[in-house]
């Protein structure tokens, strides 16, 4: 449903870009005194450059891949002399990028949502830059280089905000995520973004002065950061894999139901995203949920099983094991509190129980009901409802309901 709507929007945007390209060309040709070819060559050159650079992407902390096309667009905005050239070049480049991405969508790993986000962003940037640059240069307060830098900084900030908004909108179209979560997620990317903008500006400023060397000035320093962002991303992926693998030790040992930790984590993450938790909180929650049953490895000891144990023991043992790993102290404390009820008699809401722990409690109980007890989704949800008195936070229960409705597991 949402996918279809995004596709329709993309096609409309694509047609709009073509119309824009024609309109800018007409206006540009009306103003120019030279030949058609003289006006059109820079447009084509810039359109090609932006399209080619757009294909290169860098993994941003938010998990999405950012296209470097905006860097080329920044250079184009500095180096083109009139609005019509820039407008036509950007419209053509975006339209061409759309076609390329459509045909290589699997290799480039880009979606209609990315196309819309980047398109709206780049158009906003170009317009904002032209306005700011014009206003600044009419006043002659700054020397030309600083005028460019300030123009890019202002327009780039606007681009960043607009892009985050569009990304949040597109994300909402796509799934059951909270707008707040998506907005925060898009803001995580600022370091990558700032670096791309600075490289594009450097190229724009140095190209007229040092020719082809400008490429080296813009690309070489940026390449270090690019490499680092790539490495960071791949390490983050394998870190997640490592934790996932370690979390399965009790399951392989037959001390916890198979697949329980993975399913609990998936559900807990969905609930947290639906509730709009901060992306960093969601990552910690995911780790904690994956490892919430790791204390069960202690049940390997027959003497302990004979002596009997409670949920609190499992939580404590688990958190002790996790606490041995540096950098996971917070995850350890989340695991330690996963058994705690959200309120006690006479206390409306216990403020000391972290929301992540409460989410794990609900997600784990729901999965137990579904798999260990073999109940249907609606019956399992009812068990959560029955626990609203003390066990399960009603806010999380209703978030769980919305997630289940979105997933089509229950109809409402």
């Amino acid at each position, binding site marked *: 449903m949402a996918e279809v709507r995004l596709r329709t929007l993309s096609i409309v945007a694509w047609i709009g870009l073509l119309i824009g390209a024609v309109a800018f060309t007409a206006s540009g040709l009306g103003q120019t005194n030279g030949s058609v070819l003289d006006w059109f060559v820079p447009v084509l050159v810039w359109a090609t450059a932006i399209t080619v650079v757009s294909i290169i992407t860098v993994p941003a902390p938010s998990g999405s891949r950012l296209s470097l096309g905006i860097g080329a667009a920044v250079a184009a905005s500095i180096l083109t002399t009139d609005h019509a050239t820039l407008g036509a070049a950007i419209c053509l480049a975006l339209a061409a990028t759309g076609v390329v991405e459509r045909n290589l969508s699997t290799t480039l790993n880009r979606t209609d949502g990315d196309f819309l986000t980047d398109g709206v962003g780049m158009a906003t940037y170009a317009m904002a830059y032209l306005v700011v640059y014009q206003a600044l240069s009419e006043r002659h307060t700054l020397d030309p280089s600083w005028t460019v830098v300030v123009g890019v900084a202002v327009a780039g900030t606007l681009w960043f905000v607009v892009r985050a908004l569009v990304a949040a909108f597109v994300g909402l179209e796509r799934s059951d995520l909270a707008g707040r979560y998506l907005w925060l997620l898009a803001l995580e990317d600022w370091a990558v973004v700032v670096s791309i903008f600075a490289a594009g500006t450097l190229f724009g400023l140095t190209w007229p002065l040092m020719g082809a060397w400008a490429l080296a000035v813009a690309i070489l320093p940026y390449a270090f950061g690019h490499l680092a962002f790539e490495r960071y991303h791949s390490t983050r*992926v394998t870190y997640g894999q490592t934790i996932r693998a*370690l979390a399965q030790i009790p399951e392989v*040992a037959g001390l916890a139901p198979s697949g329980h930790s993975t399913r609990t984590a998936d559900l807990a993450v969905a609930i947290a995203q639906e509730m709009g938790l901060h992306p960093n909180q969601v990552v910690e929650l995911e780790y904690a949920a994956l490892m919430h049953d790791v204390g069960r490895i202690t049940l390997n000891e027959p003497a302990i099983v004979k002596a009997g144990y409670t949920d609190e023991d499992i939580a404590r043992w688990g958190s002790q094991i996790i606490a041995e790993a540096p950098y996971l102290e917070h995850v350890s404390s989340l695991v330690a509190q996963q058994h705690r009820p959200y309120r006690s008699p006479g206390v409306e809401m216990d403020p000391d129980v972290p929301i992540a722990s409460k989410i794990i409690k609900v997600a784990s109980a729901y999965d137990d009901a579904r798999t260990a007890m073999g109940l249907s989704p609606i019956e399992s949800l009812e068990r959560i409802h029955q626990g609203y008195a003390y066990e399960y936070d009603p806010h999380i229960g209703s978030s769980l309901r919305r997630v289940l409705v979105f997933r089509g597991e229950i109809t409402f």
Partner: protein
Amino acid sequence: MFQDELTRQEREKKRIAVIFAALGASVLGVLFFVQSFPQPFWLWAVFALAFVFFEWNAVEVNEKLFASPSIMVMMTAAVAFGPESAVLGTATMAAMAILTPADVRERRWFQPSVNFGQLVTSAAVSIGLLAFLMARIGGSVDPWTVSTSTVGLIALAAGLAAVVDGIVNLSLVSFIVRRVYGGGMNAWSHMVQLVVPYVGMGFLGGLLGATYLLVGPASLPLIAIVFFTGYMAFESYAGLREAQLSTLAGFIKALEAKDLYTRGHTERVAYFSNMIGQHLGFNGTQLERLRWAALIHDVGKLAVPREVIRKKSRLTESEYEEMQGHVHHVEDLLSEVEFLRPMVEIASNHHAHFDGNGYHGSSGDSGHTPSLEARILAVADSFDAMTSTRSYRVALSQEYAFAELRRFAGTQFDPEIVEAFVEVLTASGEQYGSPVEISEDEARRRAEHGFGDISNTARMKYDPSTQRADRRPSESEEPEARRG
């Protein structure tokens, strides 16, 4: 005798420190006469800050390459300062970087004073060369002008100057090491590794300096942003990598600690494997892979019921199967983790024998010799098993374990690795296992009579969180090539 050597070293250190401090001071003194200080002052301050920052914080690009952009900052600054103040400006910048926070904390005097001399001298020599070359490039009329046609030459000159800086720096350092500690280091093999990064960094520095001359101060925030974000990204990458290793190690340690009999086993095996690997001349990457493999080699055992592991009597057929299954559990658990895949392969073959018998993982070919790393792991694993107390017998002595390893060398173990291990462990002077000779039968009998005293197991030496130390520059007083 040893004491004499120490006092000689102390005397020599004092002499060298005085010589180098005087050298640095006189170079700076001369420069103050022949050059003027860079104008405006904030430009010098910005570059000096960046230079000191990168001197203190080298970026680890990979195991082999610690890139420090400080040499690049120096070249950018030299070009930006102009002919009148390039040498003095950069030499004073270099002088700013001699005191590190660690030096102040530990009240070191030797390293800062020699670094003062060698950093100032190498900066003066290399930037002097750069100034000379730039005068040639620009021609006699206006020596420091930059145009499209000269940008490339300036960058090349800066690359050359950077290499010269490195050569002077390393020669002085190796001179100090030779004088104070005797013997010495092979400066030239170091330099060969550093030539490419130095040329690259210097080249880029020259380009950025030319950019500053052409564009003006507006280029500085842009350059700073690109480098700062790149630096931050490398920092978070390095931090995450560190976190990953310590998470895995800490987690395994904690799980293992649930069982008194295997407590510390993994860490000791990693320690022994690392010892053997170093003795066999493994490089950083190979050692790291070996350590990871050792850390995970018994993860599968955590999934084997405790009764089976603890059993005092002989295992039944099905229990034996279950016990050997831990090799497969490792594969089931960790093969999903991409970067661990080669290590899982090693770990899953640690029960495979040198002659091709034994228990192979799914990647190992029955009847074939397992990989070198798996063979190392087998020796380290068996040694620790013999020298620690198990449920069915108390710890055996180190000599007994050596004899056992030798007895099965050629069949179960690789003879070369066994000899290497015996040699390196004997040389280390460390002692594991029972302090008194004890036969295996006696060890089993004692365990049956309840003498399985767990506190008697081997001492811990290995700390995975500090295992990176061997790649870091040492914190000793030994002067090291800065900006490496």
